[in-house]
């Protein structure tokens, strides 16, 4: 049993090692190897999840056994294990379902380098999920930024390079602010490990004169991470980045990378600042407001998009808004809803981004709505999976999207003042309506009979249906037994204390 405590570190080290190894393998072997080792990682993380759930408490792994103020620590609880498991499953599904498009988009001799980047990205995702040291978080955050830029520019057309430059510039602004926030917190606490930092901040916050510097440091950190995850008004890079990337990259960037930043932010609120103190700061109302603006503006932009990928990308901006709205509502219920939505949106959005290129493939390689008419009839599988994803996005019961909207509503009723309840409910209603409008419009479009049938048969893509079925299964599981997941998240949040 004690051996399980090594597994979180193994996931990071193994991913880093695999990244180096894939540089030396051929493209096909690298693909097989990546799939195999991701499966091993999934087994390991499942063991950690089971172990922490059974023992009912989190464990800390002290690297090099240096005592608290000096060493570097890894911490695993139910929530970390669950998020890591979700990241690995979505990563595996995106890579497996996306490789066939990858072969069209990049040179075969460079295929192994793509898997190198994917493995390094897995290492960064794992490290950011497990870490108990804020500076380690910063270092792997930069690795995540660099690798996400890498998987974006593998498709060598001018548009992706331009999108990558925009993406990197905003991300660098975010990283700079995050680093400044970390430095400020380090200066006032003298620690980089999360638990000693929280204890020190607890002592400092009893003096009202220190509140300004704490608010400033936490505010700068928050702005940095919200720029990186694409909160309104910093969402305008999304359509270009997600829309022009190769499908596997688009799916990974939208469903994992931006979510990982938000998870790190939640972790900082709970474990560095202390949630009671954070609830008193005005920052959370700003997040609530920006989240709501993001929902409305993202949905309106999605309605105006003339290209299916841009529409799905803008709807991502709206979903990020939901997550921040959950953080803004606050309390255990608000955070549970936010983290549940991270999971629901990850499985749904990756599914959508992996189906749109197949619909385009049978429509003369065009993503425009006009050419997509009848594409769901020409490629039945992709049409079906798109339908499932859209219904989850709209929030139809039994799908994950419905459960998360329900959780947001319940959190607002539980925690909010009357004004907050009314606004949250109005925004939820408006956004569901807008979502329904543009997704149902698209569904009708792809299932409508096309008069001038474009006779392009979809090429057979072996290994496409299984990952998509896994994502659909995860979506249904999240929707049908949402209380199990919500309970686990709540247990994980208590372990954060």
């Amino acid at each position: 049993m004690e051996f399980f405590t090594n597994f979180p570190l193994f996931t990071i080290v193994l991913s880093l090692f695999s990244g180096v190894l894939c540089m030396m393998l051929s493209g096909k072997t690298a693909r097989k190897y990546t799939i195999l080792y991701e499966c091993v990682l999934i087994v390991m993380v499942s063991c950690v999840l089971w172990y922490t759930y059974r023992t009912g408490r989190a464990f800390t792994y002290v690297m090099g056994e240096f005592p608290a103020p000096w060493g570097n620590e890894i911490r695993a609880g139910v929530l970390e294990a669950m998020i890591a498991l979700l990241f690995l499953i979505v990563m595996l599904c995106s890579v497996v379902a996306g490789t066939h498009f990858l072969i069209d988009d990049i040179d075969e001799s460079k295929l192994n380098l793509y898997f190198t980047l994917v493995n390094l990205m897995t290492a960064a995702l794992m490290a950011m999920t497990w870490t108990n040291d804020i500076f380690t978080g910063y270092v792997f955050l930069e690795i995540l930024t660099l690798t996400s830029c890498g998987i974006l520019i593998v498709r060598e057309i001018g548009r992706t390079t331009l999108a990558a430059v925009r993406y990197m510039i905003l991300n660098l602004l975010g990283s700079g602010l995050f680093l400044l926030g970390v430095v400020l917190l380090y200066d006032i606490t003298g620690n980089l490990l999360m638990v000693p930092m929280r204890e020190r901040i607890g002592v400092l916050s009893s003096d009202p004169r220190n509140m300004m510097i704490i608010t400033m440091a936490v505010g700068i950190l928050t702005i940095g991470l919200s720029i990186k995850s694409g909160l309104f008004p910093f969402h305008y890079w999304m359509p270009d980045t997600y829309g022009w990337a190769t499908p596997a990259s688009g799916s990974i960037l939208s469903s994992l990378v931006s979510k990982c930043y938000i998870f790190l932010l939640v972790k900082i609120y709970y474990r560095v600042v202390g949630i009671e103190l954070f609830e008193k700061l005005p920052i959370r109302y700003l997040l609530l407001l920006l989240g709501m603006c993001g929902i409305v503006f993202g949905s309106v932009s999605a309605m105006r998009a003339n290209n299916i990928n841009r529409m799905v990308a803008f709807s991502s901006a709206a979903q990020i808004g939901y997550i921040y709205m959950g953080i803004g509502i606050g309390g255990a219920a608000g955070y549970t809803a936010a983290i549940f939505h991270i999971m629901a949106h990850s499985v749904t959005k990756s599914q959508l981004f992996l189906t749109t290129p197949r619909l385009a493939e049978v429509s003369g390689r065009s993503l425009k709505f006009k050419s997509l008419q009848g594409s769901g009839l020409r490629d039945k599988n992709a049409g079906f999976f798109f339908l499932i994803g859209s219904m989850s996005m709209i929030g139809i019961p039994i799908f994950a999207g419905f459960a998360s909207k329900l959780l947001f509503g319940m959190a607002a009723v539980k925690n909010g003042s009357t004004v907050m309840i009314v606004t949250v409910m109005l925004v939820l209603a408006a956004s569901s309506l807008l979502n329904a409008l543009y997704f149902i419009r698209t569904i009708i479009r792809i299932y409508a009979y096309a008069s001038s049938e474009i006779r392009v048969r979809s090429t057979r893509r072996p290994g496409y249906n299984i990952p998509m079925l896994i994502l659909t299964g995860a979506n249904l599981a999240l929707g049908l037994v949402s209380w199990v997941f919500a309970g686990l998240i709540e247990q994980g949040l208590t372990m954060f204390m």
Partner: protein
Amino acid sequence: MIETLLANYEEAVAVILFGIGFVMLLFQRNLIKKLIGMNIMDSGTFLFLASMGYIHGRKAPIIVDGVTDPEVYINPVPAGLVLTGIVVSVSVTAIMLALTVRLYKRYHTLQLDDIYQLSRHQMEDR
């Protein structure tokens, strides 16, 4: 107010540098100038960290003459963090320069606005 600023002039300069770099990275339209802005921003943070980590009158944390009293030495961790930060900053700059070279080869300009205009007219990108 002025006295506090003068007493902490290193931190004040660091914050000003950060601000200059941030605004350059956000608003400059020339890619190379944007990158220089990013480097100025990072230098500001490093200067802030280094000046906060140094305590006047203390020595570098290397034990000489057997003095092990921690009150004599400064904390080595901030310097280590600055070094890590510099490594990160250099690698990010390298990637951004590579991207800039790629954009320049394709569009023959470094002005972002011109590049947007050109990319819109491109037919190859669907």
